[in-house]
Structures are given as C-alpha cells and as structure tokens.
C-alpha cells in the first residue's frame, strides 16, 4: 500500500533536471545518487505537515534561487579570526575543498584526510558506500546524497590520541549565493581520542544554502568531542545534519553553537549501538532579528547500559524563533538505560517565540529517563538585586544572560576550544561591559 503521495513538487522537478545536467560533473557514486533521487522523488521534500518538520518551514528556501558552488579566491587573513589557534585546519570555500588554505600537517599515521570529491573519484563504484544515514527519513539527506559534491573524509586510526583539535572550516564567500551539499564522513578508530570542530561562516553578506550532512562512526572505546560552530550570515540557509553511530563504550560529546542563518536547522541522530556507549549532546542558539533556529535530536538506545544526556539552551531577542525537538528512543531490552533531556529558553523580547517538543518512546522497563523544558524572561528580582549593587542596567542584563548560558560550557576541559566558543558567545552577547572574571 502506498502512503500519501506528495503533489508533484516543482522544486523536486527542478532538482531532477539539475541532477540530470550535473550528473557528469558530480564525483562518483552514480548508483547511490540515482537511488537517492528516486527516494527524493517518492518521498518529497519535507513540509510542515511532516511531523518532524512541523515548526520549520522550508518553503522560502525552496523558492530561493542559488548558483552551483564555485571556487572563489579568498585569503587566509579573511577568516583568520575563525581559526582555532593550534588546530589542524582544513578549509572549504563555497562548498569546495581548498588545499591552499588548509594546513593539516603531522596527521601522518594517526589520521587520514581526503576530500569527498577525491574519495568518490578514486573509489571503486562496486565498493560498498560506508554511509550510516537513513535517506528515507524525512529531511534533506536524500537531496544531499543525490547532489553531494565535496566534503570531508576523515579517518582516525585505532589507538591514537590526536592532541591538537582538527578544525574543518566551511566558508561562504562574500556575496555568494551558492548552494552546497556537503557530505562529511568521519570515523574514529578503537580507543582513539580526538576533538573536531566544524565551523560554518560567511564572509560578509551571502545568501548561500548550506546543506551539510556529517556522519560520525565511533568504534569501541573511541572518544570524540565534536563541535559545530554555525555563524553564517543572517541571510543564509543552513541545514546541518549529523548522524552518529557509537560502538561499545564509545563516547561522543557534541556541542552545537548556532548564531547565524535566516533559517538554520541542526539535526543530530545518535545510534547507541552497543553496551556502555555514551553521548552528551549540548546546544546553544542565540538569535535575533527574524532568525529561525531549530535543534532536532534523535537518540536511539539500541542496547543496554547506555547513557545519553541532552541539554539545549536558546537565547532569543527581537522577533526571532527557536525550535527544539528532542527524541529519545529506548529499544526493547535496552535495560539500565540512562537518558535525560532538558531544553531552556530565555526570551529577551516580547516578539520572540520558542517551541519545545520532547518525545520519549520507551520499550524497556528498567530505565531512567527524564525530560524538561522551560521558557522565561530575565528574572526581574535578580535584575533589581544586581542593579541595587551599583551595576547599570545593561551590565546587569548581560550578567544574567551570561549566567543563563554559562553552565553549558561547564564540564568542558579548560582549553582553547572552550575559550574559542566563549569568545563567539561573548561577541554575540555584545559584551557591553565585560563581566570580568576573578583570576
């Protein structure tokens, strides 16, 4: 029996035509692309009547016109301030790998990087594609799979610690209106440790559409700190999806900092695939103007004794909007599951609006699961108390907003990654008068 057939969608027709035209330019994986395009045609693009897309409307995105990615020349100085000091840096401009701007020396033996385009071009078509993404799931994964052009293929060997963070920077050049379907394949070998940051930024105004899909595979006892910093221009579109699969005793710490995009959606699906796998998902979105930011999670406890925690916070000003949809799924027999979820929203303006939707599906009986959501404005009692101690109104507000976001970074090691995130948070918060820390 067929499900509801979507109406013929002009956007899909459009992609269909483009797919046909682009087929020869796109690197490899032609069978996979074809299958994905069929899925896309069959299932359609998500609309607000799709349950998991109820709060995020893509109609404006699909009406907008984009160009295909082209390799614009930019200089390292233009994005220097977004580089994490001391990191291995790999740079993409308007969706395409830039070897000239990248510096990833000393990875020899511990990890291997190649661009997705290189990987697909050299890969034997008959080799199985290592993807863990379900392209049938409503969203843009099928679109990404049919039109992916470049991205990161990064494989960390077994038993290694990469001490310096690895930063992948995806730059939208100034005045670009590019559409990019980035695909990142990252795997961490047994008992290996690494920190990876994915930075998405615009240099000046840009109306780009970034559809990034990152796959994370963590082998036994692997430990990955994975950070996404999305600071695109507020006229950009961003759909960033992460699909992660964790083997026994693997540990994933994911943190998403979002402040850009006119519409941004960060989606993460984590499969806790074997005992004692553990994930901590955190997110901070800071939005103003008419920005829309969506964080959607799906944590799947497939085996017993796994732990997951989710903590998402949003700071909203003006007429901005945020969405949090958090799902926890506990499979039958996944006993001793420990799964928690919390979403908190701070509204700085009457025009702002936050939606929060938890969803817990639990098929095991010996589990600890919890969820919670809160929406509120600044505590007036606290504001008065602070001001009565001689602190002006603007600083008092800034102190309280900082306080609201501060616990998200707690527990993160005191290193330059934390400092890096703090810097962008402070930048957004305007840092009216620095709330100085006691040494």
């Amino acid at each position, binding site marked *: 029996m067929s499900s509801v057939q979507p109406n013929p969608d002009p956007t899909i027709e459009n992609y269909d035509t483009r797919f046909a035209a682009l087929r020869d330019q796109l690197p490899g994986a032609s069978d996979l692309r074809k299958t994905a395009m069929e899925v896309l045609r069959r299932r359609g693009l998500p609309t607000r009547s799709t349950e998991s897309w109820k709060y995020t409307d893509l109609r404006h995105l699909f009406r907008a016109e984009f160009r295909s990615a082209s390799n614009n020349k930019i200089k390292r100085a233009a994005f220097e301030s977004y580089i994490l000091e001391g990191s291995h840096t790999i740079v993409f401009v308007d969706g395409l790998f830039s070897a000239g701007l990248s510096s990833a020396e000393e990875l020899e033996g511990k990890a291997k990087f190649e661009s997705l385009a290189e990987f697909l071009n050299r890969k034997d078509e008959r080799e199985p594609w290592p993807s863990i993404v379900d392209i049938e799931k409503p969203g843009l994964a099928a679109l990404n799979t049919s039109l992916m052009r470049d991205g990161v293929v990064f494989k960390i060997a077994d038993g290694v610690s990469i001490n310096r963070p690895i930063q992948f920077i995806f730059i939208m050049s100034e005045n670009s209106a590019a559409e990019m379907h980035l695909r990142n394949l990252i795997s961490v070998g047994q008992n290996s440790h690494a920190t990876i940051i994915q930075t998405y930024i615009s240099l000046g105004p840009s109306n780009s559409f970034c559809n990034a899909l990152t796959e994370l595979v963590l082998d036994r006892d692997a430990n990955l700190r994975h950070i996404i910093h999305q600071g695109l221009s507020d006229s950009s579109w961003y759909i960033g999806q992460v699909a992660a699969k964790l083997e026994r005793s693997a540990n994933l710490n994911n943190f998403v900092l979002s402040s850009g995009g006119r519409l941004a959606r960060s989606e993460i699906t984590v499969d806790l695939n074997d005992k004692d796998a553990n994930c901590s998902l955190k997110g901070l979105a800071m939005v103003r103007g008419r920005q829309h930011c969506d964080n959607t999670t799906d944590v799947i406890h497939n085996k017993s004794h796994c732990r997951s925690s989710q903590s998402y916070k949003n700071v909203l000003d003006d007429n901005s909007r945020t969405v949090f949809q958090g799902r926890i799924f506990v499979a039958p027999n996944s006993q001793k599951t420990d799964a928690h979820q919390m979403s908190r929203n701070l509204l700085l303006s009457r025009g702002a609006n936050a939606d929060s939707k938890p969803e817990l599906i639990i098929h095991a009986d010996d589990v600890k699961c919890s969820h919670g959501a809160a929406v509120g404005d600044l*505590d*007036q*009692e*606290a504001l*008065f*108390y*602070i*001001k*009565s*101690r*001689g*602190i*002006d*109104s603007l*600083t*008092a507000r800034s*102190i*309280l907003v*900082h*306080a*609201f976001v*501060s*616990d998200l970074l707690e527990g993160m090691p005191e290193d330059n990654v934390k400092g890096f995130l703090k810097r962008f948070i402070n930048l957004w918060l305007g840092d009216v008068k620095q*709330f*100085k*820390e*006691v*040494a």
Partner: protein
Amino acid sequence: MLLINNLHVSVQGKEILRGVNLEIGAGEVHAIMGPNGSGKSTLSYVLSGREGYDVTEGKILYNGKNLLDLDIHERAGEGVFLAFQYPVEIPGVSSMNFLRTSLNSIRSYRGEKEVSAVDFLKLVREKARSLEMDDKLLQRPVNVGFSGGEKKRNEVLQMSLLEPYLAVLDETDSGLDIDALKAVADGVNALRSPKRSTLLITHYQRLLGYIVPDYVHVLAQGKIATSGTKELALELEKKGYEALGLDKTEAA
C-alpha cells in the same frame, strides 16, 4: 543626609505610604518598626528605586539631591545600600565576580580606581572573616545554597565592602540565631561613623539591643504614627502595637 517629605507611594494603584515624613542626619541610626503591612518594606524599596513603586506625592532629598531622579545603580553609587529582607539567589553568577563587579562599578561611579583581582580577594577574605563567614561560600553562585542566616551575613558583607553612606536594613534580623545576630550587628556597628547613617527596619526590639538607634519611629497605616528614642522600642516590645492603637492596618 536624608529628608523624606510627605511621601505617598502606590503599588499597582493601591496607596501604601500615605504621607511619610522622616529626617535622618549624618551619623544617625534610625529604626522603623511597625506591624505587618504598615509599609516598612515599601519605604525601603522606594529608597533603593525598585520599579513598580509609584511616588504619587512628596519628595526624597538625599545629600541635597532629588533621590527619585536617580536610577537604581546611581543611587547605589551615591551611597544608598539596601540589605534585602529576602536576598535573591542568582544561579550561574559567581559570588566573587558579582561582588567585584559591584565594588568596581561603585568605585568607577565615584571616580575612584578599580580594585585589582588580587587586592579584591584580600579585601573580601578580611571582611568575611570579621563577619565569621566562611569564604568558601563565595565560591558558590550568589546566594545559591546559602542558609537563611548565610544570606543575611552575605548582605552585611556586601554592605561592609561597598561602605554606603545610607544603609537601609530591611528585616536583616529575621531568621537569625543569636550568634548570627551578633555578627551582623557587629558588622553594622563597625561601619558607624559621623558620615554614615543607618535605617533599620525591624519587627522586633531584639536587634536594637545590639545596634542602638538614636531614634525609633513607628510606621502604621502608611504614616509615621509616633517617634521617640530607643525607649519607645522597649515600650512597644512590652505592650505591643495594639496598646498604641496601631494594630488595625490593612495588609499590603
């Protein structure tokens, strides 16, 4: 120092203070007593500038300035300090950072140099010790996880750090055991000087045994009903407000 003249204050359209007159000279300690709902806390909030308290008539002069023209933080800068009846818990804000930001804000308002982190730590530890307050408390967020007594000590610690010219203590004695009461009173007394004035708002005479006031006023039905010296407090303690015919106040 402080001159309150015919002060009328409404909260959400309801008149709470109905013509308060009060003059506090430099170096004086005044106590305001009165039954519940007589407007004592309202007076403290109006002095510190809390929103929602509408002055419909009258004026407040502080060192010759119109206090009502000043923002909350400016009043603090000018030396007005309110020790809260219910100090506010502020999760996520470290006590140390808060105190230092406060002190430096007030110092910069007065055109004084900011205190360095090192000097500040020394200063806070010293003040905390004299209040018999464990300075480990200050590693916590502001007032979070503090007992009732610890919160009150923290108020007095802030007062002794900020060295106000007009300290208003709103029921600082409530909920304190005798040791805490003594420590708090010592803290207040240590600040007494010919330049500094104190307004004690209290329910009971008990505190006034430790901080001896120059004048005692009884606030009832939004007005100063009677004034006197410290003996008035003793009399109230003995006979109760009822004996003075002051019990029939509406709750505010």
